[in-house]
């Protein structure tokens, strides 16, 4: 596999996973940017474990997940039922503080970053395939979990909380518990993503964990659509991939393009391109097709 393709596939998977991590708490209107800080904290910790303590990658990855979960849970205890803007600002301050701490900690390379992470399984090729396998395995698993969540009682409760927290509380739904659950889930995911992200490039640099990445994730879920997980799945590769095809002069303005796109979509299609209604339409279309034919035939071929 060529190196650019590997990077594209791997980064796309990370973007999908991270956008989902943002998507899940946003189901109840929590725009939880703590996940970006989680990525950095878990990633640097895992890198430190591998580089300085010579622990195996698997253990470091596990530690990344656990660290994300613990931090996410601890923070969620306070802001599980906080208003949206408070959740946003907590995430941002966390990112800022994490960056400052990392910048000033020599053990993790400070402003220089961490380099020279080992290949998993010895050779570069095995390393790439392992990373891709783990990432896309996670995409499948997390996608399945979120799909189940969206179609569960909890998912419906989250949608209600998105529109009106007070009303939802009066229906006997514990908003705080739900917030804690969703936030912890997304932080756990983000922790693992942080570790994997570092191992894609085999290095860590603080330049990634900035407000830029916040902007990209936000654009992905708002352009793709925040009411269903499919929008993200589609928007993440497109929004990351298309600017790669631009000439460098244009590509360097991609954050401006993202910002403009975000604003345009919010004005014209407030729920994003892929909405629950759209998905519902496709589902009923498919089931109608299936109703006419036996499920195993390929409907497209005989048209």
């Amino acid at each position, binding site marked *: 596999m060529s190196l650019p393709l590997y990077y594209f596939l791997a980064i796309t998977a990370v973007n999908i996973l991270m956008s989902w991590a943002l998507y899940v708490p946003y189901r109840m209107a929590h725009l939880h940017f703590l996940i970006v800080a989680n990525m950095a904290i878990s990633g640097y910790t895992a890198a430190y474990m591998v580089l300085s303590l010579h622990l195996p990658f698997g253990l470091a990855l596990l530690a990344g997940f656990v660290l994300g979960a613990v931090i996410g849970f601890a923070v969620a205890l306070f802001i599980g039922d906080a208003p949206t*803007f408070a959740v946003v600002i907590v995430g941002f301050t966390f990112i800022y503080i994490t960056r*400052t701490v990392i910048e000033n900690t020599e053990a993790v390379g400070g402003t220089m970053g961490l380099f020279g992470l080992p290949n998993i399984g010895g050779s570069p090729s095995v390393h790439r395939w392992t990373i891709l396998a783990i990432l896309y395995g996670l995409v499948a698993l997390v996608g399945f979990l979120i799909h189940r969540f969206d179609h569960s009682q909890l998912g419906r409760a989250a949608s209600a909380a998105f529109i009106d927290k007070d009303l939802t509380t009066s229906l006997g739904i514990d908003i705080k518990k739900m917030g804690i659950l969703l936030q912890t889930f997304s932080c756990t995911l983000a922790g693992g993503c942080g570790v994997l992200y570092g191992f894609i490039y085999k290095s860590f640099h603080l330049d990634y964990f900035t407000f830029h990445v916040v902007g990209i994730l936000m654009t992905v879920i*708002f352009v793709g659509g925040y009411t269903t997980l499919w929008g993200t799945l589609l928007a993440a590769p497109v929004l990351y991939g298309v600017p790669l095809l631009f000439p460098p002069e244009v590509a360097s303005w991609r954050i401006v393009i993202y910002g403009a796109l975000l*604003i345009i979509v919010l004005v014209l299609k*407030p729920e994003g391109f892929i909405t629950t209604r759209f998905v519902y339409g496709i589902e009923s279309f498919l089931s109608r097709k299936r109703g006419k034919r036996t499920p195993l035939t390929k409907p497209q071929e005989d048209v």
Partner: protein
Amino acid sequence: MEVFIAQVINGISLGSIYVLLVTGFNLLLLVAMIIHFAYPQVVVFSMYIIWLVLEVTGNNLILGALAGVTSSILLNLISAPLFQKVMEKRGEVDINSTMVMSMGIGMIITDVLSHGFNKGHPIAFPDTLAGGEAILRVGLISILPGQVSAFVVGVIAVSGFFLLLYKTRPGRAFRAIAEDPNGARLVGIPLLKTGLQSYALSGLLGGLIALLLAALIGSASSGLGEQVALKVIAVSIIAGLGNLVGGLVVGLSLGILEAIVQGYISGTWSNAIAFVIMLLVILAKPTGLFGLKL
């Protein structure tokens, strides 16, 4: 002790700027009903415009000031129809969307500043803007003209703002909409027109802040907006979103706190400490110390 006094003086001038920023932010929140996350970024953009005009005109301060104020008002007025479109239904969901939209605006501004001006390098304002030598110097304590102007203009602008709010016809309409938009509509107050007035007013305030920041800090970088934005939003959350008097108290306190920390702890950490303190307060009371006015 001398360090302490010197830093309190620094803190008061810095705090005045925070107060102005929070006031502009809260005005938009209360009257136009938007969370303009990127309001401080608009201010930093105006700083860049001031710098550009100063470069082009050979440090013509009057033109620079005019350009700063105009650009900030214009930027606010241009974004107004976009915000109003998103804010159509005026529900909680829409307020959150305005916040996301504002972040989009912030992304654009920051990126334009980091490529479009001065090849992405931080900009430095001429010393004439800061007003030159210290007015008073006693040991470690010195008072710079920029600090005095930040404080004086801050006091004048804030009292002018409150006077406008409590003694004039537009101010009355602002307060009415802030309390009950539907009720205000029933009385015959034009929501859109009054909303636009608040955009223009916070733009004017933003231009003033840009000038003061240029005089006080003397430099700016593309990342400044994000950092200030964080502090301003944190201050307004701690004060209780939309709470004008709370914003006054907390904004000034943050300025002083930050300056004192800076006096005793090295640069990179002092900012982080301010953030840690803000974070702890928000975690403990996500709806603010003085109550939400929203």
